C-alpha cells in the first residue's frame, strides 16, 4: 500500500491521457503514466518514487493492440508480458520476456512498463533494438512514430508528458533465426546475471545485452567485431569485449569478472549456433 494519497485516472483515448497529464501537471499533482504499475507500487511503498496522480493507460485501445498490419507487427504498451507469450506473434520477444520476473508477476507487468522501468535489466527492449523497431509515442506534439535508435539511449528519451503507445516491428524481422539466453549465477528464477539476444539478419549477426552494464544496449562497435569473419570466433569475441560501452556491473548477482567470463562463453555459443545454420 502507498502511504501517500494519489489520484487515479483511467482515460480511454490517447488524447484524453495527454490532456490529463497537462492539466494535472498544471495543478502540481506530479502525474505519471501507469500501466502494469508493479515497479511504481513497489518503489512507492518504499518511498523511493513519488507521484501524486496515476494516469492508467490500460483502457486505451491502441495500447492493447497486438497483431499485424500490412507491413508491421504492432505491439501495444499496455499488453501484459504473459499475453505476449501466449499469443507468441513475435517469438524473440516471447522468449526474451519469459525470463522477466515470474509468471504471475508477468500477468501484471506490461511491455511499456518494462521498457520504461527504473530497473536496469529491462530485457523487453532487446528484441526491438535488434529489429530497428519504431516507437509510437504520444505527447503534447501529437502521436508520432520514431525510430528506436533515435529515442533510446540507455533509456527512452521521452519528453515530459509523452508516453509509449505502441512498438512497430517490420514483418520481415519477425521470423529471423534468433537466440535469447538468460544466464543466472544459480537456480532458474530470480534476477539474471546477463541476458544476450541475437538475430541473424542479411548483413550479419546482431546482438543486444541486458544485465551487463547499468542499462540495456545494442552496440554497433561490438557487432562489427563479432561479425569479423576473417578471424576465429574466440578472437572476435575477445575484441568485442573490448568495445563494451559502459562499466560492467559488479553486484550481488555476480562480479564484473564473472559477468565477462559468462559473456565470453555465451557469445561463442551464440555465434556457433547462428553461423552454423
Amino acid at each position: 500500500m502507498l502511504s501517500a494519497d494519489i489520484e487515479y485516472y483511467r482515460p480511454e483515448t490517447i488524447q484524453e491521457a495527454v490532456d490529463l497529464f497537462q492539466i494535472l501537471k498544471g495543478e502540481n499533482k506530479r502525474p505519471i503514466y501507469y500501466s502494469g504499475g508493479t515497479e511504481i507500487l513497489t518503489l512507492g511503498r518504499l518511498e523511493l518514487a513519488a507521484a501524486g496522480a496515476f494516469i492508467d493507460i490500460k483502457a486505451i485501445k491502441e495500447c492493447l493492440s497486438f497483431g499485424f498490419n500490412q507491413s508491421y507487427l504492432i505491439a501495444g504498451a499496455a499488453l501484459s508480458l504473459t499475453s505476449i507469450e501466449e499469443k507468441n506473434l513475435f517469438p524473440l520477444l516471447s522468449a526474451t520476456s519469459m525470463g522477466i520476473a515470474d509468471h504471475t508477476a508477468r500477468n501484471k507487468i506490461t511491455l511499456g512498463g518494462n521498457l520504461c522501468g527504473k530497473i536496469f535489466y529491462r530485457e523487453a527492449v532487446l528484441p526491438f533494438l535488434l529489429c530497428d523497431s519504431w516507437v509510437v509515442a504520444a505527447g503534447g506534439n501529437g502521436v508520432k512514430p520514431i525510430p528506436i535508435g533515435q529515442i533510446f539511449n540507455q533509456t527512452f528519451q521521452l519528453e515530459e508528458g509523452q508516453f509509449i503507445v505502441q512498438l512497430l516491428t517490420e514483418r520481415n524481422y519477425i521470423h529471423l533465426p534468433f537466440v535469447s539466453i538468460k544466464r543466472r549465477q544459480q537456480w532458474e528464477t530470480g534476477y539474471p546475471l546477463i541476458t544476450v539476444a541475437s538475430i541473424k539478419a542479411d548483413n550479419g549477426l546482431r546482438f543486444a545485452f541486458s544485465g551487463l552494464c547499468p542499462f540495456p544496449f545494442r552496440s554497433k562497435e561490438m557487432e562489427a567485431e563479432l561479425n569479423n569473419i576473417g578471424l576465429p570466433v574466440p578472437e572476435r569475441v575477445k575484441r568485442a569485449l573490448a568495445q563494451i560501452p559502459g562499466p560492467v556491473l559488479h553486484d550481488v548477482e555476480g562480479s564484473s569478472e564473472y559477468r565477462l567470463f559468462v559473456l565470453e562463453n555465451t557469445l561463442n555459443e551464440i555465434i556457433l549456433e547462428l553461423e552454423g545454420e
Partner: protein
Amino acid sequence: MAQSLPQKITVPLEVNGEARQVEIRPADTLLYVLRSHLGLTGAKPGCLNGDCGACSVMVNDTVYKSCIMLAVEVAGSKVTTIEGLKDAPIQEAFIKNFAFQCGYCTPGFIMNCQALLKNHPHPTYEVIKEWLASNICRCTCYEEIEAAVMSVMKGERP
C-alpha cells in the same frame, strides 16, 4: 471516460460471487482492501513486493499478486480469493498430498494452482514448474505441491 477521483472513493467489486461497494483510497492495494475492508484474510501479506506470491488471488480467472495491484484497478472485475473456492479439488489434493507445513504460503499457492488448472487443464511439467515458480514456500513443500497439481490433472479423487 476519464474522471477525477477524490481522496476516498467508492468502487464496485465482485468478490467471491458477491457484489460489494467498498470505500477506499485510490492508493490502497487490493490485498489491503481484501483484508482490512472485507475481512478476507486468506490472501496473506508476505514480502509486499510481488516476490513471494502469498497474496495471490484471481481476477477474472487470471492470477495476480494482490500486493502489487491497486484495488481501484479491478473495479467491476470478478475477484476470487481462497475463501471463494469452497472445497475445490485442488484444496483437497493439497490435504491428500501433505502439500503444506506451516500453511502461510498455502492460499497463494492454491490460487495459483487453481488458475493454472483453469487455464491449462492438462499442463506439461514445464508449464507447472513455470507457474509454481511464482510462489515461495519457506517450508519447501514444492514436490508435494507438484504432486497435488498432478493428481487433480489426472482426475484422482482424494
